[in-house]
């Protein structure tokens, strides 16, 4: 038999794992909180020195570090102090020059979606489930630290910094929700297109199956199927493709009117196959 000591040891070990796995503050992306069915991804990028920023994607959040996006780049010094590098734009601008620029409005996203779907399917967009601001990027200020400044006499000294606690915010991408019809079948869908955090990969959410893979072009692809236990015949497919340039295309499509589930069944089969959804999400026309 075990004792509570063993349980406490196990808790402490799990805490150690948490500390080892997470260097704080991290980068992470969270999926839209209110996004149907999707249970919000979290992705950590490579942890860097000081500060973090948040990106909320239609209600979700991504934490970035200033080091990734510009703003004020604090360069760690040997003594733990930092010096201020020239400022760059406050928005979390990609470090790499070829970062993806997503559609920024529902109209743009809808137009692209229709163009890429072509004759494969038609969509009806529900304005109540779509948003121009698919992602809000919020920049958390850097942690308190020291800044090395050069005095008029040429000497340097370290002064403590107290960061502004007001986060900056901006938007990334757009989100659509509505219904999709193909081959006489109609089901609810949602689609998010935005720029993911550096290092993000495609992942499944709640599902009864999950397949992830990396494409030859470096994109990561995740496909999964979720059976709605509360609705007979309720099935939702999820496909996510994350390209190396940060383009993140995430789609849910269901036999139900709402891909989140717990809604009425509108079709006996999901209107598109996972393969068709993957082709759509992986299109180079995004």
């Amino acid at each position, binding site marked *: *038999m*075990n*004792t*509570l*000591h*063993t*349980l*406490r*040891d*196990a*808790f*402490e*070990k*799990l*805490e150690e*794992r*948490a*500390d080892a*796995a*997470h260097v*704080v*503050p*991290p980068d*992470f*992306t*969270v*999926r839209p*909180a209110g996004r149907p*069915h*999707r*249970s*919000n*991804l*979290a992705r*950590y990028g490579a942890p860097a020195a000081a500060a*973090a920023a*948040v990106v*909320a994607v239609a*209600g*979700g*959040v991504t*934490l970035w570090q200033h080091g990734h996006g510009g703003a004020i780049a604090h360069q760690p010094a040997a003594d733990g102090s930092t010096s201020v590098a020239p400022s760059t734009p406050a928005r979390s601008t990609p470090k790499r020059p070829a970062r993806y620029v997503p559609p920024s409005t529902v109209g743009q996203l809808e137009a692209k979606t229709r163009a890429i779907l072509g004759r494969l399917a038609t969509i009806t967009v529900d304005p109540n489930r779509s948003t121009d601001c698919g992602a809000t990027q*919020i920049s*958390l*200020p850097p*942690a308190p630290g020291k800044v090395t400044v050069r005095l008029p006499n040429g000497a340097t000294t370290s002064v403590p910094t107290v960061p502004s*606690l*007001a*986060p900056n915010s901006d938007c990334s991408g757009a989100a659509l929700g509505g219904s999709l019809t193909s081959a006489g079948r109609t089901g609810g869908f949602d689609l998010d297109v935005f720029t993911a955090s550096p290092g993000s990969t495609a992942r*499944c*959410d*709640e*599902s*009864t*199956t*999950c397949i992830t893979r990396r494409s030859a072009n470096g994109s990561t692809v995740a496909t999964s199927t979720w059976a709605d236990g509360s609705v007979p015949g309720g099935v939702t497919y999820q496909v996510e493709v994350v390209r190396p340039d940060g383009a993140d295309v995430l789609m849910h499509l269901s036999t139900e009117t709402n891909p989140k589930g717990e809604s009425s069944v509108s079709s006996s089969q999901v209107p598109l196959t996972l393969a068709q959804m993957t082709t759509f999400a992986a299109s180079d026309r995004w």
Partner: protein
Amino acid sequence: MEFSEYVHAQHPALLRFATVLTGQTWLAEDLVSDVLGRAFERWTDIGAMERPHAYVRRMVVNEHLSWRRRRQRSTAQAEPPDEVIADGADQHVEREAMIALLARLPRRQRAAVVLRYYLGLSDAEVAAELGCRESTVRSQIARALRTLRIDLTRSDSLVGSPLETR
């Protein structure tokens, strides 16, 4: 308290709690980042609370128990080893076996155990956190302890004190 202040101060504690709750670091990341996203949206209200961290921690528990989180990949991936006999030299093995046993617990049982023995909440407080009756909490914890093969009669009462500062 500003949101960014809160994140800087409590993010590590939230990740530890979520890791203990879920047993998996990646899932803890997932949970915490989701919850922080929602907390940010409502920070005007949450930040004004007397104990915002307790509220956010409760959001973590609720999110973990949410139907949206019922992912197959979050279930135990392997059968735990057979019961390990403690001999003083096998603490590591014991601990790993316990972690494996924790992973086998149904979510609500695990949440009850974590709230009771990790946070040190009373049965009444656990019931309030989980939205159930105290009797339900007691029965869930009793079942969980059986699964964990924990003999309370052999356990020092001091170990029931919380690991995390409330």
